[in-house]
């Protein structure tokens, strides 16, 4: 299973996945978790901005933007 984990940034716009692991530093990780991005949360990659940074995701019914740098440290299991 771990083999198929991908960083969030590997998703195409419109693709959905489930959060599997957050390897961010504690501060950023804590904030994202409080916002509801905990392991097991379904998430959709909504769009990338120009040059693919920042990006917009959708989970638990709302939209959030974050940078590529942080998104690269969020590992997900894509939903086929």
């Amino acid at each position: 299973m771990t083999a198929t984990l991908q960083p969030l940034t590997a998703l195409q716009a419109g693709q959905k996945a489930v959060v599997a692991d957050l390897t961010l530093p504690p501060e950023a990780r804590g904030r994202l978790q409080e916002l509801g991005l905990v392991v097991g949360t379904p998430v959709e990659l909504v769009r990338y901005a120009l040059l693919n940074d920042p990006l917009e995701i959708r989970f638990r019914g709302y939209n959030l933007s974050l940078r590529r740098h942080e998104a690269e440290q969020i590992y997900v299991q894509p939903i086929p």
Partner: protein
Amino acid sequence: MSSGGATGMSSPKTPPTALRGPGAPAAYLFITGNPNSGKTTLFNALTGLRAKVGNYPGVTVERKEGRMQGAGEGRQVTVLDLPGTYSLSPHSPDEQVARDALFHRIPEVPAPAVVAVVADASNLQRNLYLATQIIELGHPTVVVLNMMDVARKNGIEVDASALEAALGVPVIPVVASSGEGVPAFKRAVNDIIQGRRSAVGARSFCEPSAPFAAEAQAVAAGIPQPVTPQHSLAEALLLLSDDRFLESSAGHYPESIREAIRAARRRLEESGVDWRSAVIESRYQAIAAIQQNVTREATPPGHTFSDRLDRVLTHKVWGLLVFVAVLAAIFQSIFTLAQVPMEGLEHGVSWLGQHVEAWMPPGALRNLLVDGVIAGVGAVVVFLPQICLLFLFLGLLEDSGYMARAAFLMDRLMTKVGLHGKSFIPMLSSFACAIPGIMATRTIENQRDRLATILIAPLMSCSARLPVYTVLIAACIPDRELWGGLRAPGLVMLGMYGLGIAAALGMAWLFKNTLLRGPTPMLIMELPPYRRPMARTVLRHVWDRARLFLTQAGTIILLINILLWFLVSYPHNQDTRTRFEARRAAVQAVPPTATAPEAAAARAAELARIDAEEKGEVLRSSFAGRLGRAIEPLIAPLGFDWRIGIAIVSSFAAREVFVSTLSQVYDVGDEDDPAEGGNKLAGVMRLEKRPDGSPMFTTLLGVSLMVFYVFALQCVSTIAVVRRETASWKWPLFQWFYMGALAWGFSFVVWQGGRLLGWQ
């Protein structure tokens, strides 16, 4: 911990009867909740006040109090609006205010009689995170289920009574923006204050593993003064699981507890417990279960209107083009749409001046009224239409939800200078006025980034620069069509705004690489759904700002103008007067040889010339004139003469005064209405000559002067706010000097460079 006032430590469930009667002190109702959940809208509905509302997270950045209207049963209820927060662990100064209020850490704010947690019904899970955290604290709590209309429209049905059962505290569905449900909420608040309804939750919404729970128990036992005694366990869980909470509570917990917490965390780590995530994950599990039980999705979530709009507005390419086009359209239309009403106001001011002049006997008082008060204040007041339009457009941007998108679009650029997209919101607000812009930086997590944003915010051209730019453009820039319908004046105006933005970005880069060096902050920002801006909200805001503008014109600017009138009119020099009297007498003494109209006209012209010369002489030797001439050497390299020097010095307190001063210096009050319409002051300025006879207000001078005003920090209120927000004089002084240096430097380059190139 501060003592929480009379009701602070008494058990909230059964307040002593003495505290319920009419003579009792006001009961505090806190309004808290996630950012952008509608707290301030509810606050306004309860109090009848008009605190600022907008559709982006972080509108409210400080606490605000108001009295609840129609509070029943004698006891006054004070409503406290708080900044939004996502959790009890604060990441930025505004979130800290919200957390501190709930933990009795603000000395002026007593303990709450009721805490209302506003939760967005259309975004229930994330909103319940904070709500459940607060319920566990043990204050009497009501969950206000707001935005029921949005939830309904999105096909989500929320069963409020099921939610009430699940949470164990009252849940009141409302639509704060229309007032629906607000009376029921008020009744609930009164019932709780009167002790008729219980609102203290008993449930805990996270079930940590056994070792974690045991450690929490131990920590709880050691908390000397828990926020609510029966709920010290919730506080212990927060302390144990949350770095931020503990860090931001300096001085509130003794070292013994801190040490116990560190030891407990070490033990948990050794036994393989992720103490940072355990509580959050367990809470979200409980919340997801609750949400599933209480909501029904009538229609499967499709793409909403907001999603479709975003496909264009945040599109990689179109999004940016739309953004630039929106800003350009706003500034262009401020310029063009305001023209007609401004001319109307201008006629009004002239009319008033002429009538006062006709009614009153000549003398110092008449001069003061006509030249000082009416011309000086009038020169500022005529800009009311532009100010209103600017606030109207910014209000529309703020209330539609576009601000967060602008931050998203600009993030890439902001990263390049070491800031993040969120810093762009204060920058946009600064187009209106640097003060709200500087306040808005409270949402920025990192102190260095916040400071960098504060330092650059006043470089964005605020509404007080509008009059300066407008008059200078009208006086100095010929109204030519350039390409494709774009006219020179509009383009120059846009250029000045552009220059301000570019300078702000450049300086941010410089600061972030020198004084305030630090990593580029991360961006974690909610993008709220678009909403149709509420006419009431936007128009009220415009009205409030218009009133503020007029109040200022009628007070501070009036006072400065009276002072200025005195400074430009005195001291009177008897010698000068006799000298000019003699010259006038000489002209008049020539016997009218013929009744030819030309001769009479020539004589009148000669007399007018002598009058003007006398006025020039009086101004020159007046207090203001001496001051202007004293600083002339400093500003001469920028192309400015001593009269402009007077205007620069007098507008130190507020930039608008620039136009008043010119109006007084060039004696606009005495001029007749300009025939061709357009700004009267500008008309007079166009006729001004340098001593060598060349025109004073050339295009080059106009640009040099405008550039000066783009940069110079001529605003006492901004300095005061920066001093308050940075808690030192160091930063406002630094800011004043660096902006002054930029102003001088850039104007110098424009003027000298332009002259080298032979421009006019």
